[in-house]
């Protein structure tokens, strides 16, 4: 249960804080960290919930935007980056970066409350 709630909260707060364009793009690191402090889990589970939460959100957002855009911009950016013009690779890269950072933030948070073994 904690696991699922952590995932949902991570996604929700990442999205909510992301609405404020003036805040830095990495603000979700803070919210993820706070979630992990508030809902203690084992480090590995905390990492997984943070990663899945942000990763799924970013994947979903990117996928939806890309579909509505007929892949116009993602194809161009995937040529610049360079990902051989593959919009799918670009969505995966986006999700991966979000997941990695989201997971690490939650992991850090989990150590705040975790008892010494």
């Amino acid at each position, binding site marked *: 249960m904690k696991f699922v709630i952590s995932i949902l909260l991570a996604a929700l707060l990442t999205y909510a804080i992301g609405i404020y364009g003036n805040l830095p793009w990495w603000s979700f690191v803070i919210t993820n960290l706070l979630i992990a402090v508030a809902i203690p889990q084992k480090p590995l589970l905390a990492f997984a919930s943070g990663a899945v939460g942000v990763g799924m959100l970013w994947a979903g957002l990117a996928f939806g935007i890309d579909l509505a855009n007929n892949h116009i911009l993602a194809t*161009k950016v995937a040529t610049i980056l360079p990902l051989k013009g593959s919009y799918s690779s670009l969505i995966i890269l986006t999700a991966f970066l979000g997941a990695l950072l989201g997971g690490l933030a939650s992991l850090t948070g989990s150590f705040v409350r975790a008892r010494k073994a």
Partner: protein
Amino acid sequence: MRLLPLIASAIVTTALVFTLNVQLKLGNAKAPRLGYFLSPQHGFWKNAEKIDANFDASIVANELQGNVDVYVDDRLVPHIYADHDQDAYFVQGYLHAKFRLWQMDFETRVASGRLSEIAGADKLPIDRMFRRLGMVYGAEKTEANINETNPNMKATVDAYTAGVNAYIKQLDPADLPFEFKLMNYAPEDWTPKKTYLFLMFMSYDLTGRSASLDLQMTNTRDYLGYDLFDKLYTNNQDSLDPIIPKGTVYEKPSIVPVKPMNADSAYLRKANSVAFNTVDMPEAPDKNNGSNNWAVAGSKTKSGRPILSSDPHLGLNLPSLWYEMQITTPTHSTYGASFPGSPAVIIGFNDSLAWGVTNAGRDVFDYYEVKFKDSTQNEYWFNGAWKATTKRTEVIKVKDSLDVVEDIAMTHWGPTMFDAHYQNTQSNGRSLAVQWTAHRISTGVETFYLLNRAKNYDDYLHAISLWTCPGQNFVLATKSGDIAIKQQGSFVARWERQGDFIMPGEDSSFQWQGIIPGNENPMIKNPERGFVSSANQKSTDASYPYYLGAASALPLYRGISVNMHLNKMSQITAEDMQALQTDNYNVFAATARPALMKYIQEDKLSNDAKRMVAEMTNWDLYNNVNAKGITCFKIIWDSVEQAVWGDELGGSAIPLLKPEAYVLLDQMLKDTNWSIADDIRTKNIVEDLKTQVTLGVEKATEKLLSLEKENKLEWSLFKATRVMHLTKTPALSRMNLPIGGGVNIINATTENHGPSWRMVVHLTDEIEAYGLYPGGQSGNPGSPYYDTFVNYWAEGKYYRLLFLSKEKLKQSERTKWHIQFQKTNS
């Protein structure tokens, strides 16, 4: 708390945030912060526009005097209906910013030498060049003058500026244009000065080639000696068909420029050729910057009404230099191509008349060599005394580095471009100051303002009389049946060859002796032949009393082609004019091919060479997409030129100028023993044209065979026309377009240059107009409207332009969206 893992994990997290938050170098100044760039709520994803996006909007702006309705058609062209003129310009500024903000920022950064600020020290050479050229200096002078003397134009530019800023102010950082995110910087407020800087850049683009040309001509003259130079770089164009028909009688000139007594020795260096190696500019405007325009009178059209055509040839870029729009207020109703960065329509039509422009190509830029007293550059020698300079300090901010300061010594000629501080290692301390009409007060912005409102020939004449720089050929056609063309600008009254080379600046004898009065500029109205035209050729024959400048800036063949066609045509329709604008006939090759054939010694050619020559001779003389003959012709001609000029010019380490193609062609047609043909590197053999041409064909064949192997013999594959994003990023550009044309062709499309806005206007009661540019109305690479017109443009097709009253446009089925501007919330 598990301290060690906590610390370790915190460090890794912070390090990753940091890594994803620093700029990632991708070359060409592209350096996004990867985390920011990929964040779906902050980065580039936000710029991926829905393909069925809705552009309806309601905007409240206190700056307005009344309400404004904008209807946007299916090509994303806005039609502005405003009750007040200034409101129309406010909305124009707003829409320019909404669709083109990044390019406006970028282009004015280029013009003012501020690229290093966002892209780092790599851009310093370009920035320093533009600073020293006095781009900011010129823009400031124009701004100050308009602020002091022209309240109406000040109000116009201010309203435009307020519109741009109203858009910037409401812009959420997450919605910044794509390129700001890619290059990681933010827009700053627009200012009137940026508008003048933008117009200054157009002056540079269209007259600044002299900054390189004058150096190259000086180098070449010194390298060859004046006599040989004068032969190879002759200003005589035997086949010229000028803008003003041959045989026109000109009034006596009011200024008779006097060539200084010592010009032959001190300036032309006829006897004492001393090689001063001068340096070249880091960048120069495209040689092919030019254009076609023409108007045919009712006597030559099917409808009995005039038709006007205009297609400016400029660099082909995305986002485009042009942005289409209609502006309708109680004082006027105008449609056409505007410049994001400037108010009003630049090339277009209103309900009374249509106008278009081509570049005049006149030389309005000169270098003067000055002698400073010492390294402080506080004084320079002039008319037998030391004269004080003033200093202009330009601070160039450099990203991740220290500021670079240019202390520019200002002389009465103008700013010192080259001196001991600037790229002068080869020139032994020579200092060159620039005199350029673009540095003078410009009233050009008012020309367009008035043309937008012009009702007749007299209004047109008055509007263009205010035009100073860059000199243009303004063509006109009115509903009432007038057609006219006038070459207008501030043109220097020059003696023969004055300003072709670096001029002595130590006394007043080489100074400009006056600006030609506007009423003496070449012009013609309603000529008997029923058409007026220009294609950047020399505007007059030799009977015009003023020197028009070095022929290298005045291409010959497009004008011949345009006039040849127009002379033959009758019962002309708008479709005929479209066909002529996209015509691919090669009038140069029509003369040059038989001339080549005369000199080719077929029996000495290899079988491959014979095959390539056959490909060339079987060609129909049209530079069409699939033609292979033009590729063969071009490579063979270039190779023959190389064989002929290579020995005279090949040994130079400094940049020289290649003679114009007509010089060699005229010689081939004259069929004389021409001493230049001899390769001076072979001591015991005297080559003639036959040997050289045959040698050229053999050399060309090697190149043609390798092209054949790569499957690049077809003209469009060889030419590989592209419309290039301003950052030169291929992924954001349109590469390898299937389009014909080329240099000397009416369809003047070269590799990255060509017809940047094609317009045909039939002046019937209800105006029938067609047009398009190789781009799209949206500057956003993530929008389906980014490059909408490119394919159509390459195919030579046109859109019918919607030019309607508000009521009719509202009901048009092509109208898609409505943007409402309101003074207050109601």
